[in-house]
């Protein structure tokens, strides 16, 4: 059974005889009542989805605008977040930085590792290993994120201290990797939050990549092997190119999760105090969009403080969307070239 939750599959890559996608809107529908009802219901569902998204967007914007108007600081460039009182000042720079850094770390670890594991399961592993391994990883895709966070804080976190030390010793001359004096303990840093996010999205990336790799036509693979390719050459020339769009979607889905992850990050990350100097190090604390919302929403008692958080949510929404859109463009372009 093959399932993909990415919306991309082999079928997307295979145009029909007229060069269009094979199934889009054939004209077999007739004017019969049943057809009109069923087709109408399908169209209505589609319209409902459009309406839902529009409604979400409108609501978020409507609640964010008054707060943004009251904002005394520049929303896009300020590092402050003080929403109480009559002259609120808030901006998203720190949130954006923490969100992007943790997600990039998560992706840098999870994507290569996930692809490699998927390749291992589909191409290398003996059958006795590949099935249970695949089942276990699928199971882990369902572990709630709060458990990853709690596990990171109470069990795994202490082992990250020496790892951080090694990274600092080797790459500390780059400010990005430098451990700061008096900074938070290693398990409360952006770096470790990124690692936990990586572990969290790893099953997702692996599961989807695995499905895509499993769909590579046997003829392609056997063709490569028959030409004398080594297994690695076969993978590089037949499996990877075929699976690339799927892997990109898998990565995007994982990235979407990482960007929006709330509880795991809230549990782990140390917040910075007001007026802390900006640090470009991954061994520093911070707050992501989602964790800021989670920490602030309960005590947000005024339209301004709620609106400010919703505005942050809106930016997160847009950020996730832009990433998805880029992925879509990349996949589409690839498709165009491969024809």
């Amino acid at each position, binding site marked *: *059974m093959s*399932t*993909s*939750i990415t*919306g991309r599959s082999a079928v*997307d890559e295979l145009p029909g005889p007229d060069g269009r996608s094979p*199934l889009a*809107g*054939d004209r*077999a*529908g007739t004017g019969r009542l*049943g057809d009109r009802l*069923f*087709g109408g219901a*399908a*169209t209505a*569902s*589609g319209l*409902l*989805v*459009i309406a*839902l998204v529009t409604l979400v967007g409108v609501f978020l914007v409507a609640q964010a605008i008054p707060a943004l108007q009251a904002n005394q600081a520049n929303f896009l460039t300020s590092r402050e977040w003080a929403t109480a009182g009559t002259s609120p000042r808030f901006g998203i720079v720190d949130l954006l930085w923490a969100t992007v850094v943790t997600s990039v770390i998560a992706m840098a670890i999870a994507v290569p590792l*996930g692809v*490699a*594991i998927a390749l291992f*399961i589909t191409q290398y592993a003996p059958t006795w290993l590949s099935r249970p*391994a695949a089942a*276990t*990883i699928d*199971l*882990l895709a*369902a*572990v*709630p994120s*709060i*458990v990853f966070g*709690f596990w990171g804080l109470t*069990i795994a976190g202490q082992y990250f201290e020496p790892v951080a030390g090694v990274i600092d010793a080797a790459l500390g001359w780059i400010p990005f990797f430098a451990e700061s004096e008096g900074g938070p303990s290693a398990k409360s840093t952006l770096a470790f939050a990124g690692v936990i996010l990586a*572990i969290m999205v*790893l099953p997702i990336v*692996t599961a989807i990549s695995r499905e895509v790799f499993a769909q590579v036509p046997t003829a392609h693979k056997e063709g490569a092997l028959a030409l*004398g*390719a080594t*297994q*690695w*050459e076969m993978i*590089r*020339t037949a499996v990877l*190119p075929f699976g690339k769009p799927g892997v990109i979607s898998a990565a995007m889905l994982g990235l*979407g999760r990482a960007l*929006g992850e*709330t*509880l795991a990050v809230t549990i782990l990350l140390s917040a910075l105090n007001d007026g802390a100097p900006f640090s470009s190090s991954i061994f520093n604390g911070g707050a992501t969009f*989602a964790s800021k*919302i*989670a920490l602030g929403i309960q005590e947000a008692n005024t339209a301004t403080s709620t609106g400010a958080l*919703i505005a942050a949510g809106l930016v997160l*929404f847009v950020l*996730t969307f832009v990433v*998805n859109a880029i992925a879509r463009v990349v996949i589409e372009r690839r498709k165009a070239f491969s024809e």
Partner: protein
Amino acid sequence: MSTIELETGTRGGSPAPAAPPTLSPKSGSRAVRDNLARIVMWGAFVIGVIPLVWILVSTILKGGSMLLESQWWTNSQAGITNRRVGGGAVHAIQGTLIHAAVTTVLSVPVGVMTAVYLVEYGRGRLARAVSFMVDILTGIPSIVAALFVYALWVTTFGFQRVAFAVCLALVLLMIPTIVRSTEEMLKLVPNELREASYALGVPKWKTIFKVVLPTAFSGIVTGVLLGVARVMGETAPLLVLGPYTQVIVTDLFATNMATLPTMINQSRSENLQPALDRVWGAALTLILLVFLLNLLGRFIGRFSKVKG
């Protein structure tokens, strides 16, 4: 060293051979690279599996004993504070199942029909718009979905925070998963089946209803279960919309209903052994539920597989 031409443009720098490739034994750098790749894959597998197995093992070790007590499955936490042992998780299990069931019932018709629209009916701008909106929906962070429902349900309509409101937020997260997986499955249904049906004079809606959807059924179920698994572990919407309770509540419109994620969240707030045991117990229970759902999905998939 022999060179081979496999696919154009994918192997940088290797000149195309004029003669057919000779099947000389693998040698030199090619063999080294192949072995290196093999080692890297094994290594990646081991490295990647360590934390995953670690988290699973710690959950089982720390939570397993809770699940072996019969009252875990028969009792709620009524009257049990964080510093006392005893009580069970049945209130949270029920809550989670109810949330999942209601969310599924609400999402599946919309999700499946949207997929049908996209695959079978959709054309032109509207189809592209719907597809685009599904993409956006995929990207909605769960906390943003919860904020939206809070703004709509509580702020605008003045309703109570009830389980049903949580379900509405979860529906937003589940619909795109269902649309995408169903879309996928419908695309895999061979066009010949449709054409054969049309040739017999079967109207389009009946073709979809009686031929296309049944053919894709097992795949759709798997997709739905994936979506269910995802929403069962969601915590953020529950924090905003679904206050916890220690007792059994099955009324969708009652104000407090327990779920496993909120039970975890409530119990993790203190460093007390009985509470920590419950964190891991609830986590393991949730994983187990999802596991059972997957088994069910596989069973249905095998049972209802259309041959051909």
